[in-house]
């Protein structure tokens, strides 16, 4: 892939006229996707897709294109040359772009994972065997992901990774289910069996009669996957520079009224984790870490190329939302969570969050999957789904009581427009009051 991309890049650079610059971005995947329902295969297949982004620049004016590649060099070049001419013709009608930004001195780089791709058929066989008797539903995704940048200034960047992501739910009945996942680079049968044993154990707990609790405010423990939903919602305008400078961030009150989150809350964009490419789409090198919330106070913003130029800031991210979020650990041992919670809700997942009032960082959303009522430190039974409506300034502010000492690395299973590079490393959160409304 890398050689094919660089060869295309070299050929296209030869098309440039005097004064023109060209930025090329590459994105590709070879993925197996196998969908499961009732522990049987629902749909199984393979996707191979390669896409090139062109940004043709001259005199401060530029136009962009995205083109699917076939893999046939001559055919692709013919198509790309036609698009190239179209961009050149378009550019004549465009005003100068004051926020055009691309690196002129960024280093070339390469990060390649040569691990073998896990054998999907073997993994599926083991999974279905291990889940025998369970109503298991979910998806297996695996294969190679590629990303690259090439510029007419000679810069070359390449990132190639191998991964699998098995994301599943085991159902008891109705909407009563336990969610599980197993993701990584090297398939380990023993690790799968351990997770499946955990699913069977949790499903046994789900078989108890469900409770319906009335609306009200309850103590809660949010497992890392539940906390991630809140942080992902907060990331919708919460951390990017443009949102902060234009007064539409949900964290606006931290800037205008001096509000702070709890001192335990430290959020970092950990580019150094290395699961996402270490360069932006334009070829800027990402710093290893960007502090977003520092001990409860506003930290830096995520600055993409365009916003960096507009506001005179250094580029530190490909996009304005975290790709490799990390939250600092606390000191509560996970094994002591039930006792620390006392009486309240143990929430493994939240679902379908949105803003009730963006200005107050007030969110609403649902509980989903295993959610248990805990009474004096002992699990009583599953709880029917509940809707919460509360402000982040409370949940991660004055009502945050503790974060767990252990953290969970969550690899994003999403695949809109291609498999995701995103990940998050998070603790669980003990909160002295979350408001439930329905």
């Amino acid at each position, binding site marked *: 892939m890398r050689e094919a991309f660089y060869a295309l890049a070299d050929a296209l650079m030869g098309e440039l006229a005097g004064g023109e610059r060209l930025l090329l971005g590459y994105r590709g995947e070879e993925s197996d*996707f*196998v*969908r*499961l*329902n*009732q522990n*049987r*295969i*629902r*749909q*199984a*297949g*393979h*996707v191979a*897709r390669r896409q090139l982004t062109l940004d043709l620049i001259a005199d401060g004016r*530029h*136009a*962009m294109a*995205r*083109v*699917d590649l*076939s*893999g*046939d060099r001559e055919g692709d070049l013919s*198509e790309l040359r036609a698009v190239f001419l179209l961009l050149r013709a*378009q550019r004549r*009608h*465009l*005003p100068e*772009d*004051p926020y055009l930004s691309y690196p002129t001195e960024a280093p070339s780089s390469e990060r390649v994972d040569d691990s073998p791709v896990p054998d999907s*058929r073997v993994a*599926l066989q083991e999974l*279905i065997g291990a889940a025998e008797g369970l109503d298991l*539903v*979910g998806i297996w*995704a695996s294969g190679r992901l590629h990303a690259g940048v090439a510029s007419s200034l000679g810069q070359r960047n390449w990132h190639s990774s191998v991964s699998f992501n098995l994301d599943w*739910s085991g*159902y008891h009945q*109705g*909407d009563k289910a336990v*969610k599980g996942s197993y993701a990584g680079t090297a398939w380990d049968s023993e690790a799968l069996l351990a997770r499946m044993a955990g699913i069977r154990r949790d499903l046994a707990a789900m078989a108890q009669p469900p409770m319906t609790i009335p609306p009200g405010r309850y103590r809660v423990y949010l497992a890392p996957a539940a906390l991630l939903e809140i942080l992902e919602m907060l990331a919708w305008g919460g951390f990017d520079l443009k949102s902060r400078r*234009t*007064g*539409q961030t949900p964290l*606006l009150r931290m800037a205008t009224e001096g509000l702070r989150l709890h001192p335990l809350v430290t959020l970092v964009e950990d580019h150094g984790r290395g699961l996402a490419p270490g360069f932006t789409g334009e070829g800027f090198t990402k710093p290893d870490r960007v502090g977003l919330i520092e001990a409860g106070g506003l930290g830096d913003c995520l600055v993409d190329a365009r916003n960096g130029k507009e506001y005179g800031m250094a580029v530190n991210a490909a996009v304005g939302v975290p790709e490799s979020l990390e939250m600092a650990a606390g000191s509560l041992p996970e094994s002591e969570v039930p006792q620390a919670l006392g009486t309240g809700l143990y929430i493994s997942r939240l*679902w379908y969050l*949105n803003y*009730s*009032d963006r*200005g*107050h960082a*007030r969110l*609403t959303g*649902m509980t989903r999957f295993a959610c248990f009522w805990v009474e004096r430190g002992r699990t009583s039974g599953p709880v029917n*789904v509940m*809707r919460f409506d509360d402000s982040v*300034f409370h949940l991660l502010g004055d009502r945050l009581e503790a974060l767990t000492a252990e953290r969970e690395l969550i690899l994003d299973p999403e695949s*809109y427009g291609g498999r995701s590079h995103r990940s998050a490393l998070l603790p669980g959160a003990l909160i002295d009051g979350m408001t439930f409304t*329905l």
Partner: protein
Amino acid sequence: MSEQQGSIAGRFSREAPAVDFWTLRLVEAHTERLSVRQDVLRPPVLSRSRGALVSVVEGEGAGYAATGDLSPGGLAEALRRARDWAEASANRALVRASLLPRPDAVGDYASPVGIAWEASSLASKIELLQGASRALKIHGHIVDWEAWLGHSRVDSLLTSAAGARISQRVSLIDPGLRVVANRGSEIQIRTGGGARGARQGGLEQLSPQGFPDEATRVAEEALALLDAPECPSGTLDLLLMPSQMALQIHESIGHPLELDRILGDERNYAGTSFVRPEMFGRYRYGSELLNVTFDPCVLGETASYGYDDEGMPARRVFLIRNGILERPLGGVGSQVRAGLVGTANARACDWDRLPIDRMANLNLEPGSSPLAELVGRVERGVLMDTNSSWSIDDSRNKFQFGCELGRLIRDGELRGLVRNPNYRGVSEGFWRSLVGVGNADSFELHGVNSCGKGEPNQMIAVGHASPPCLFRDVAVFGGGD
């Protein structure tokens, strides 16, 4: 159908693979997007997408492979991979592939286009957007503003071993306006000009969507909302305008009626449904006034088509009639599995995804009440316009939705604006509180441009048309801490 697609399909068919059954779906998409944010033109982005999905049935197994390599060698490799997956899944398949219908229809469809995208020069389109942008920035408290214009043309060709040959061209226009007003810690966002639903057709669709003429109104309303009181809390009458009805229909009728959800396919991701198979034909979903159609034949609506992506001919059918649930949103594959009659609604978002049960055009049919009559029937209530927030449980039952703009109604008259209007309810029951449905004059086309579902994930645009609707005794509330 492009000339190249016809040639590729012809060759594939002539060299027909030795499998029990196959389909080949070729897709070629051309898109272009222009936007001006804070009076600065962002670089125009055009896109050329081309690829194929080969699906194979071998014995009781089915498999697929998607590739951008449309050469004979590329398609042969895709066929090999699809066949491998068919063989690998045969003994573990959820559905016996030999029982699935095999499309054989021949036909075509094309979006009617009045004024072609190319009829207006790039310079003219940029000038239009810059004018709209300037019209949005009417005050210092407008802190962000944007106008955009998008276009796509998607050619697809579906062929099969049974002789299917379905050629479709869908052309979409996607304009929009967005402003953000801010003062202190108060943020108000208002959108318009078609921001909530693409239309099929050409540039003739801009004016009916209020693009760019709504710019000044949209900006003025965002500013006015900064000074408006919070929406009151209480059990009130609720008058939802078509721009919010689109979301209400989408989340609490459309998704629960998707048959693949009812069959459990989506339980790990998009969720399940409170609707069960035995409810079709007898369940009272809403009041007598509730009539909902699956209608892929509405001129200009987002998701009109002649055939779905499994090759089934599409036609208008009632899903809910006089409040009674009649049939699910289920393509022919799901229909076989469930033993229910459904709709031609299996759709794929792109060439690299399989069709799954989706909404297409899902519309609430007009009633007989002029808008003024609906307002006049309210003693104490709130009118809500344009969705801003959406959240619903995984069974598509407990929901909470928010709107950009609210307006008080007292004693049958519209009063002042209220900000951050929200309401919550439960799908089972909510539609039974429907007490008024606007007439045909108040019927509007809207939609949802980015409906996410499926594993692997798929994002697709759907259409929802509706008149304003009046609901009794709904839990309404505003923002604040």
